[in-house]
């Protein structure tokens, strides 16, 4: 187990290092070079002076070492937009995104598992076909358009749900007010995640149902529900844990779009605004932090997987 943990840990550090190198090179490839990272001054003289002050005339590997050292100390630079430290801004935005993403992931898992089990146990039935068809729609529907359509129906026509924000400005900050604001964003985000989870739950369940121990359980004369829920489900759930972890990049990527549609003040909205405004320190800080969150989560999922299923530890 120790060796397994060590191997995963090294892999995680490697991925983070790769991301750091990638973002570093990306900035150096930017028209105008990394000088534009820290100054908005644009005349040649100013830039030359700035380059010398920043040590940009030094060899690339020296610069990279310095940059890495700053990252490790948590110094991501300051935003061009308001001059605040990047890390402080991200500290405010990240939890807001995680709330949205966490809720969507939870709803997706809660809905996908029964759907997948149903599809697997009723293979070829109408319900299975309907589930498959809906999954196709789910992967193909542009989430931003789905969000707009929901807004047209529930905000414009029916006036049931608020069209944007986390809570009503000026109104009392109640839990129900927050929940009402979360319904549409969570629904839109979950729609993008559901199909893959359903598909995975279905194929995982189908595979387990064809195993010998399931046949034995059936042969013993056990009720179908007992075979499905007691013998098969537990084993079918193990791979679903992994795929839930693997979905995280999609959750966060999806949050970018969802936050934009519904004016949800999270990391995604910030990323888009920073990309449009060419706020380099912010964009790169977000990329590194998001990569860190994803890598850390994958590490936890990997370890959980190894703990749940001893077979994995010895590959």
């Amino acid at each position, binding site marked *: 187990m120790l060796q397994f943990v060590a191997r995963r840990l090294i*892999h995680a550090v*490697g*991925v983070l290092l*790769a*991301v750091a190198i*990638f*973002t570093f090179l*990306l*900035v150096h*490839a*930017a*028209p105008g070079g990394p000088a534009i990272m820290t100054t908005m001054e644009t005349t040649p003289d100013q830039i030359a002076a700035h380059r010398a002050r920043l040590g940009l005339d030094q060899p690339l590997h020296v610069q990279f070492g310095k940059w890495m050292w700053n990252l490790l100390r948590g110094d991501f630079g300051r935003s061009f937009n308001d001059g605040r430290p990047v890390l402080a801004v991200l500290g405010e935005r990240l939890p807001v995104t995680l709330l949205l993403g966490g809720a969507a992931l939870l709803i997706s898992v809660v809905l996908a598992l029964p759907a997948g089990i149903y599809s697997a146990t009723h*293979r070829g039935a109408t319900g299975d076909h309907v589930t498959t068809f809906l999954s*196709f*729609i789910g*992967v*193909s*529907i*542009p*989430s*931003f*358009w*789905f969000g*707009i*359509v929901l*807004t*047209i129906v529930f905000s*414009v026509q029916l006036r049931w749900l608020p069209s944007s924000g986390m809570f009503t400005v000026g109104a009392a900050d109640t839990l129900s007010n927050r929940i009402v604001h979360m319904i549409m964003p969570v629904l839109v985000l979950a729609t993008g995640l559901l199909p893959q989870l359903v598909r995975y739950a279905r*194929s995982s369940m*189908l595979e387990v149902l064809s195993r010998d121990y399931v046949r034995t359980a059936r042969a013993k004369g056990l009720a179908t529900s007992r075979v499905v829920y007691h013998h098969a489900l537990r084993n079918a759930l193990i791979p679903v844990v992994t795929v839930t972890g*693997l979905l*995280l*990049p*999609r959750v*966060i*990527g999806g949050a*970018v*779009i969802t936050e*934009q*549609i519904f004016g949800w003040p999270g990391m995604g909205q910030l*990323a*888009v605004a*920073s*990309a*449009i405004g*060419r*706020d*380099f320190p912010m*964009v*790169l800080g*977000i*990329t590194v932090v*998001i*990569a860190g969150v*994803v*890598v850390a989560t*994958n590490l936890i999922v990997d370890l959980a997987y190894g703990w749940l299923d001893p077979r994995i530890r010895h590959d």
Partner: protein
Amino acid sequence: MTEALGNAAVRGRDGKAPRFATLAARRLRRNRPAVASLLFLALVHVFAFLVPALPGFDPFLTDPGSTLAAPGGAHPLGTDEVGRDVLSRLIDGARVSLVVGLLSMALAISTGTIIGALAGYFGGFADAWLMRATDAMMALPTLFLILAIVAVFGGGPFVVMAAIGLTSWMQVARIVRGETLRWRVAEFVDAARALGASDGRIMRRHLLPQVAPAIIVTATLGVAYAILTESALSYLGVGIRPPTPSWGNMLQNAQQYIWSQPRLAIYPGVLILLTVLSYNFMGDGLRDALDPSLRNV
């Protein structure tokens, strides 16, 4: 069914065993969603690439006298906020979205195929590192990478295409690697090597054809992904920039008018949904047709 009848059903009219492609086409024809998708896609592509060449086609022509006009008359789908014909813009937007989608898919497929083939064929050290890089890329939220790339290099069709292509090759690389691993130990590869064929020749002439069906399927699904991603980027305002129309930026624009003109937001979305859905159905149909053993996986 008797043996003779079975043979008659499998063999063509000239008595020869049908080619693989013929069999695959036969299987594809029986898949109704795939056939419907193919027809729809043919229609969309013909419209997108031929209509803009017609004289008098102008998606930028403004008609100040009729802004936000209702459908009918000279404007079958109405006009937008500056009086441009919505149908013309949808068709020109289709061209932009399809070109970006197809080209980024081509880039992703080439990158993925090269990396996957090298990893699978040479194995060992190359395989370990290439696949580690692939896994690392796969674990990252690609949309953020794309945003970083777009922030540095600016938007526009070319950057968007490159950004999508260079962040979506991982699946292809894994599939190609798997198939290459499977086929490189085949006897015909040994035979080719015994005849003195170089590594490059073996990969191109002997392995690639074996991997082709898997690549075709992934490519079809890849177009769906690329179109969806391009439209998302354009919707976010970092992809194709106005005035050049794309389905994504038309939607971004239409969102301002959902309280008064919700129909403007409906058309581009329906087109994206149907096109992406068709590519997905096609990909699924092709998978069944090209490799029946993958059915229900």
